[in-house]
């Protein structure tokens, strides 16, 4: 017989609970509240419905759920929310986490396994959390001869660059963190950073395996970035803009994949190469060069690189959706917001709660997000598929493919796009627009 706490007494347990509650209240009122007021003194508070949002008012509204909607709504439209939660980091990290879980289950089903099973009751759904905790609790070992500042900063730069890439992807009409007019050029500039980070951290680790892996990463990314950029030029020619949101809007009637299938194929293959996934995982080829440029990273540094990789995966899949699959465009399937809730409120028994300021998100945004997520998930599944089917290819085969085949194919579709443009089929004033 196993006993968890042999000396357990209910009265003592309840007394300790009261103890804890007393200390929490004391610390909150003596330390917590003053800190909140000091912070709020320095922040410019917003005007909501003509009322200045003072701390007391905010707390009153928080206590009354029916009046807290304006606060939430004003928070939603801040830049902070965009960067940290919805089209930015939180949303992307959630999708990336889902991708990791789906990849493991999906690959397991292909390989006649079950995949993660025990962690978190239902099909091992908490496996990722467990892995993250493990990585965080592991010791970070830094090689003695490493160039320490650069070695430390490598994973951070990697995640930062991946986050910058994520911020350029428009998810729904108006919902994008950064919307520069040269959005596509900004994407090229961002992905140009990844080989630099790989070489920097590979060189800084001062090991032979990371050195070879870094050089391989450099070769691979250079030979695949040119076809990647060229394959997207046909989209620019057809839509006449570099702004990603405007490219999505130009696909209201037809997706560009209809006119540029070759570009789409080239872009898809170069995505897999950029992401260093099988069959193009040469920089991390474990049977040849241990783990390539990631060899010396341990603990959470490796975890950060993995996070960055999956953010990058989401961003590339999102970019594919935006450029070829019409982004957020799709039939309106999201039900309209029931207006009764605003006018009459919700009646539960004797209480009628009214929520002024609803809805939080408009119907178009929710519908666009739904279509974007569906399409992106499809692209992500396609990106995951080759890992179960193909072996790794060799570096010379990869360079040969990059410089001979994909560049040529990318050019073919540029000429097709130009032909369509000059024949007057597409473009401004064309037959289909």
């Amino acid at each position, binding site marked *: 017989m196993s006993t968890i706490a042999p000396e357990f007494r209910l009265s003592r347990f309840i007394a300790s609970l009261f103890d804890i509650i007393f200390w929490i209240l004391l610390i909150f009122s003596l330390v917590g509240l003053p800190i909140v007021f000091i912070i709020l003194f320095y922040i410019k508070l917003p005007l909501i419905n003509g009322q200045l949002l003072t701390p007391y008012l905010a707390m009153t509204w928080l206590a009354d759920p029916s009046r807290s909607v304006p606060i939430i709504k004003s928070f939603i439209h801040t830049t902070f929310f965009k960067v940290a939660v919805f089209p930015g980091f939180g949303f992307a990290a959630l999708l990336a986490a889902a991708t990791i879980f789906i990849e493991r289950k999906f*690959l397991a089903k*292909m*390989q*006649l*396994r079950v995949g993660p099973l025990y962690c978190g009751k239902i099909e091992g759904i908490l496996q990722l959390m467990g892995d993250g905790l493990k990585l965080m609790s592991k010791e970070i070992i830094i090689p003695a001869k490493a160039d320490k500042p650069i070695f430390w900063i490598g994973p951070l730069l990697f995640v930062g660059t991946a986050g910058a890439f994520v911020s350029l992807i428009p998810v729904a009409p108006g919902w994008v963190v950064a919307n520069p007019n040269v959005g596509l050029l900004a994407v090229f500039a961002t992905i140009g950073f990844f080989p630099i980070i790989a070489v920097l951290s590979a060189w800084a680790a001062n090991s*032979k395996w990371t050195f*070879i892996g870094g050089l391989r990463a450099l070769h691979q990314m250079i030979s695949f970035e040119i076809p990647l950029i060229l394959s997207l030029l046909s989209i620019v020619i057809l839509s006449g803009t570099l702004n990603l949101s405007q490219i999505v809007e130009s696909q209201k009637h037809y997706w560009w994949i209809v006119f540029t299938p070759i570009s789409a194929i080239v872009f898809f293959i170069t995505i897999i190469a950029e992401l260093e996934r*099988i*069959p193009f*995982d*040469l920089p991390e*080829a*474990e*049977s*040849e*060069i*241990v783990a390539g440029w990631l060899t010396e990273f341990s603990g959470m540094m490796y975890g950060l690189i993995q996070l960055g990789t999956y953010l990058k995966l989401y961003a590339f899949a999102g970019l594919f959706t935006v450029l070829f699959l019409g982004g957020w465009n799709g039939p309106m399937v999201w039900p309209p917001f029931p207006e009764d809730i605003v006018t009459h409120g919700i009646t539960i028994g004797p209480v009628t709660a009214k929520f002024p300021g609803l809805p939080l998100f408009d119907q178009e945004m929710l519908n666009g997000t739904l279509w974007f997520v569906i399409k992106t998930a499809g692209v992500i599944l396609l990106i995951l598929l080759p*890992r*179960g*089917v*193909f*072996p*790794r*290819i*060799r*570096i*010379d*085969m990869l360079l040969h493919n990059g410089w001979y085949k994909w560049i040529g194919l990318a050019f073919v579709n540029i000429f097709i796009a130009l032909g369509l443009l000059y024949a007057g089929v597409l473009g401004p004033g064309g037959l289909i627009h």
Partner: protein
Amino acid sequence: MTTQLPPGFELEKVDDRIMTLNVGPQHPGSGHMRLIIKVDGDYIVSCDPDPGYVHRGEEKMAEYRNYIQNIPHLERPVIHDSSNILYPYCLAVEDLLGIEVPERAKYVRVIASELNRCIYTLYWLAIYGIFLGHSTMFMWSAGDRELFIDLLEAMSGARVTHAFLVPGGVRNDLPANFEERCLRQVNYFEKRLREYEDIFYQNPLLKARTEDTGILSRTDAIRLGTTGSVLRASGVDFDIRKKEPYDVYENLDFDTVVMKEGDSYARSRVPYLEMFESCRIIKDALRKMPKSGSVRTKLKPNPKGGNDEVYRRIESGRGALGYYIVSNNRPEPYRVKISVGSFRNLICIPYLLKGEKLGNMPAVYWSLNYWPVEADR
């Protein structure tokens, strides 16, 4: 004062172009050995295999145990091919002690040996898959191994180290309904093997990677003294089961797989095609086996070998596997020498890897059907 250092210990001249890589023993692509590889860019200039990390003195240990006590430890070098590594020992000891083996036991031995050959080859194929980055091949063949492991567990009671073959026959008779179960699982396995063809052997990327890499010509294969699948992949029709049939192999219906190319692809394909032949042998043996009878000749306690020496060899998963036993009228052998296929194929590595690309190293190295623990003994 300068002292002459023994070869291999000289200080190396540091060159800007040439980089020395120690692949192993702690490397995901080496096994229990070390390959000292010098690379010039992506090309391998020289390769020096360095085995011996798992030397356990099996031959010396055999001199302190009698002929029956030797059985369990002699199968340790290749625990996933344990029936085959015991087979020549049993044959040699039977010659030495003059034991007749019952007819049924000979068939049971052949079945155990072929089942074990499939287990070994699937394990090898799994690692070949993961060496080339093909994780599905790893999982599939590691999973299908269970079919044969279960069969051998039913036969012998152990899942990995069976110690099933003993001088004078096999340890125990087959369980009830074994024939039926074995036939069903082997038929299912043949169906699975055809799926391997689609996902692995006809994969265009695999073909592009392994074809025309590490070519071993027919003359070189004979000159270097290679054996087993490496020899047959270079176009030499040599299989001990055909050339010097032991037990009941002459009664059974099977072919030798020979390929002419001699490249990594052929070397990786020969063991795969031999699994089909193994299935044929098992099915044929099940058909021709006497349905009842003794499976073990009783030995005297602590039997003594005469003043004699004997050499017997068989075809194992990795090639010819021979035992040379010298006896001097004592219950323990005077000397046991194990000649293994792995060690004889190891010598190809410097020849094959010279001038290859670094990316081809795992593809060539593991196609040699090499098992480091067996090579070290």
